[in-house]
């Protein structure tokens, strides 16, 4: 409750929460497209490559205004993306190599520029780790307004060109045959991803911002099969991770960026495990259930086969030791008791087993089903 009342009345906390929510919405919505377009690692490369832009923007203008730093970050991040695509197109270097190369080279160049900044008397050493890991607590209301406005531009772009981006992500060749300028749309959507990254620089930092692009989209994908729902959900999950992470980091006095990333990761883990339809837990349960049904069917088929060898008396008891050897004692015994409970099999006084008349009919029906499966 304390945290909630702080959220309303405490200026810093409210600013931090609002800023983190804005960042989460933007990176979540745009990141969903990045996940679908296999650009998860491109986001990583671009966010690292934002460092020299931030440093250069500060060095040239001497301003710490968030908009200035964001523009610088966006320029070098975008340049790195262009360089990656260009190198792949012009040489035998593959995409993963080009990304790792540009990521580290741009970051290295950023470090060189940072040493120039540190030499300036006014700057001092302060601020360096803020670029790397972010610091939500230092956020001002003006920062939040800038973040929200820049982010709104990105969201508006997605909203206006929704069907174009959707078709580009699913089937770019088909989009081209409809006359859409796919090359330009591709550049535009990648540029919007840059916006999503720079919006989070101050809060999450260059090193971890890629996770905020990937995690909400990956989590949202598990809950829905509709693009619209996925993008909306991704934005909401991003916002939730941002606010929750910022609050936890303020309360526990941990670095903001890593905390937000861990919250987002927790969302992903929960989604992978428990999302209806796709969740691993449900898949495992379904697997067990179908395994059990298969075992039941197999044991019934075995008993029916034994019965068929003695056409005079189909319900004559049989020794099930052979079945134990064939399928494993535990599986056979649990299947038999379940069949008995359903009235499909019976245990005789001799200790032997047989199917009941109803069980025989059921085994016969299943066998016929096996022979003539439905036309798919």
């Amino acid at each position, binding site marked *: 409750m304390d945290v909630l009342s702080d959220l309303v009345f405490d200026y810093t906390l409210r600013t931090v929460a609002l800023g983190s929510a804005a960042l989460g919405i933007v990176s979540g919505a745009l990141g969903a497209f990045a996940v679908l377009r296999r650009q998860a690692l491109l986001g990583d490369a671009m966010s690292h490559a934002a460092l020299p832009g931030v440093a250069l923007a500060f060095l040239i203008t001497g301003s710490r205004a968030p908009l200035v730093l964001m523009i610088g970050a966006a320029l070098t991040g975008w340049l790195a993306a262009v360089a990656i695509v260009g190198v792949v197109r012009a040489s035998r270097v593959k995409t993963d190599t080009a990304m790792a190369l540009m990521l580290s080279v741009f970051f290295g160049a950023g470090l060189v520029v940072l040493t120039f900044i540190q030499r300036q008397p006014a700057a001092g050493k302060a601020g360096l780790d803020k670029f790397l890991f972010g610091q939500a607590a230092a956020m001002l209301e003006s920062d939040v307004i800038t973040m929200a406005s820049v982010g709104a531009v990105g969201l508006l772009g997605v909203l*206006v060109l929704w069907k174009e981006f959707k078709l580009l992500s699913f*089937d770019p060749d088909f989009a081209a*045959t409809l*006359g859409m300028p796919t090359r330009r749309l591709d550049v535009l959507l990648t540029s919007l991803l840059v916006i999503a990254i720079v919006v989070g620089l101050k809060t999450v930092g260059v090193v971890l911002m890629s996770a905020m692009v990937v995690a909400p989209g990956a989590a949202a*994908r598990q809950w829905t*099969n509709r693009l619209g729902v*996925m993008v909306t959900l991704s934005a909401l999950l991003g916002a939730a991770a941002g606010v929750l992470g910022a609050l936890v980091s303020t309360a526990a006095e941990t670095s903001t960026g890593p905390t937000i990333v861990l919250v987002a990761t927790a969302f992903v883990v929960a989604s992978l495990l428990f999302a209806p339809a796709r969740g691993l837990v449900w898949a495992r349960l379904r697997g067990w259930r179908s395994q059990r049904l298969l075992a039941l069917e197999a044991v019934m088929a075995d008993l029916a086969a034994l019965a068929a060898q003695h056409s005079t008396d189909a319900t004559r008891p049989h020794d099930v030791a052979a079945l134990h050897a064939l399928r494993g004692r535990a599986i056979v015994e649990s299947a038999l008791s379940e069949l008995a409970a359903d009235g499909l099999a019976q245990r005789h006084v001799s200790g032997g087993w047989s199917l009941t008349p109803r069980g025989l009919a059921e085994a016969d029906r299943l066998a016929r089903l096996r022979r003539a499966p439905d036309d798919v």
Partner: protein
Amino acid sequence: MRLRTSATLAIEATDLTLAYQQRPVLWDVDLEVPQGVLMAIVGPNGAGKTTLLRAVLGLLKPAAGEVRVFGRPYAEQRRLVAYVPQRGSVDWDFPTTALDIVTMGTYGGLGWVRRPGVSERSRATAALAQVGMQDYADRQISQLSGGQQQRVFLARALVQDAQIYLMDEPFQGVDATTERAIVDLLRTLRADGKTVVAVHHDLQTVVDYFDQVTLLNVRRIDAGSVEDVFTDENLRLTYGGRVAGIGGRGNGRASDLSA
């Protein structure tokens, strides 16, 4: 004189030449498709069949040659041409439904920014019904079988209401039901005066399914009606001397090369 013949051709591609890293993929290929026919493009792997289709669609820029659709440049006639890509060319785990994919066929007519509305969706539903997939409209596309996915792609082309349908291996990896459905659909299209050009692998079915055939192996080997062109001699030229006794028309039944 040239112009008058062009006017009757649905597609006329002349002297298409396309190189990939200095290696010719298509050399001086002509493609002439009269209106209202079903034409197969046949040739070995690496013969440039898909390249030819993509060049006609403007997805690849040829080094030489031009493409005319009903006598005018392709770019002006885009609306008249629908494309059915290879099923394997897209990500089927994309979060979308069968109906949504088909609705994408209406995007070309909508222009920028405007979203598909009720009329677009009802057209898409009708197209789904035409390929027998109306019951699957709300299915996530990864839950469809290969044949069903192919039929969704066909429905997407149908909803474009085009004059010409270009298909890249529509029969690739589909079940018997879908194969029959596609053949029926091709015949319906022909009866409506539409033109279909399909890259096709299965030599056995060329005679049954198509009226015309273009034999391609980097160069155009021959083209024309199936009776005249789909001969042992031509197939040997197309597939090279390596493959003996392919058998087109002439020894009754063509054996399957792709097997």
